[in-house]
């Protein structure tokens, strides 16, 4: 039973730099593959709805606009998304995945409508893995991700 057992440790720290970071003014670096917000590469998406089916929070919504030109609209409800990156895992497109995760985590907002990200695109045709590099048709994407 030592009186003031914590004293030496406390006194040692009185001149040291505090361990806390001054957050809004100085920010810590986010590690390499941090799971931030999901977003879509519209030119690679084959609209197979695998991500919509596997999303635990039902945050992905794919609607077909017109079957003639095979254009689709995907809405990612970022206010419902739980950032688990399951959509990236279940996305079957090879070699590069259509769904991807960036590192943005400061996405708080006053209006939940600002958290919806929309893409309208023509479905990419998934070339069979022919030896020649498959030239995916340059789909005219009409709206850049929000």
């Amino acid at each position, binding site marked *: *039973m*030592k*009186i003031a057992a914590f004293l030496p440790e406390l006194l040692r720290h009185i001149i040291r730099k505090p361990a806390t970071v001054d957050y809004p003014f100085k920010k810590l670096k986010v590690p390499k593959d941090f799971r931030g917000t999901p977003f879509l590469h519209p030119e690679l998406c084959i609209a197979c709805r695998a991500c919509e089916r596997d999303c635990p929070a039902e945050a992905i919504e794919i609607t077909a606009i017109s079957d003639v030109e095979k254009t689709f609209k995907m809405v990612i409800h970022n206010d419902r998304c739980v950032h688990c990156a*399951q959509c990236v895992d279940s996305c079957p497109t090879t070699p590069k995945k259509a769904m991807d995760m960036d590192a943005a985590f400061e996405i708080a907002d006053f209006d939940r409508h600002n958290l919806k990200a929309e893409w309208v695109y023509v479905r990419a045709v998934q070339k069979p893995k022919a030896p020649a590099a498959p030239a995916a048709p340059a789909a005219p994407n009409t709206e850049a991700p929000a």
Partner: protein
Amino acid sequence: MKVTIPIGPQHPALKEPISLRMTVDGEVIKDADLRLGYNHRGLEKLAEQKTWVQNIYLTERICGICSHSHTTCFVQGVEKLMELDPPKRGLYIRTLVAELERVHSHLLWLGVAGHEAGFDSFFMYTWRDREVVMDLLEIISGNRVHYAINTLGGVRRDIDEAQRAKILGSLDTLKKRTEYYLMIGANEPSFVARLSRVGYLSKEDAIALCAVGPTARASGITQDVRKDDPYAVYGETPFEVATADSCDVLGRTVVRVKELLQSYNIIEFLMKNLPNGPISVKAPRRAKPNEVVSRYEAPRGENIHYIRSNGTDKPERLKVRAPTLGNYAATIKMLKNGFIADIPLIFAAIDPCICCAERAVKVVDARSGEERTLRFSELRRMAGRRFEKVSQKRNAVWPF
């Protein structure tokens, strides 16, 4: 003279909504009524409407601190249902994240115990050193809290050489700091005065009331699912079950710190003999009709999932029993004859994860009638009469 004190559902000592109604005679608690259900989310009904893959992330959100334990318990059960055999490296990574979570959960608990006892410097220092583990988890799994590293048939992310070295490197700072906190916890007189002989739970009571985890192990029961029913790679890892027999909050603190030291050895063992190879196998979408009981040693105690499948891609029944629920009956027993000042400490001693255990209430109705005359009895009797008048007028607020 009895005064009933409502602690909760909103109260600074309780991070989550739970209602404790203490009948108090002066500073001594006569009996306790625990009322839960304030954030019951109907998880078991919801699980029946989601597919196996979606349920992984649902079970992960049962508890914020021990999220990996519920996912692992669930994924192990479903792997048995689907007859999947996850590769060895995947199991090693899964056990590694389990132990890292135990380290961060116990360090968090040490801080909370310090804060409940008013020892804020201890709280600040333990939580500062907990950041080392949180950063490790963030580098491995991409997120500090919900790691989502489990998937059906293994894990989703691999560990490269740099991460392995970083883990081994930060182990000895953690070991040094934990031994320092064990010294402080056992030697700081004002802190020990708040912990020893508080919240006494004898071994017979712990057995009768089915206490789990560190609460039971601090009363001398060596009961640890990692030893009794080894899962993942605990069969091969050398470690001992930490127990104490002082049956009070100090014993639970010692048990948790010993478990921390054991976890460091396990992590070191895992990192040294991490086999190479694939980390997961492909999982089908449906599971044949079957049932399975899956058990897991969470930082707070034993987790049990009973899963039954009916051939579709959704479970027929998912029964989850979180460790805190098992300890509530024991908490009521501990609260009796304690002091008001000890309520937060006794309650924090079982490391309650209230959102996990949305299932328990228990009334102890030992209405001991004797009237203790105290020097301040006159003052308190006046207070008593004021409350009766007060409570009658606003009885809608406190339904006695």
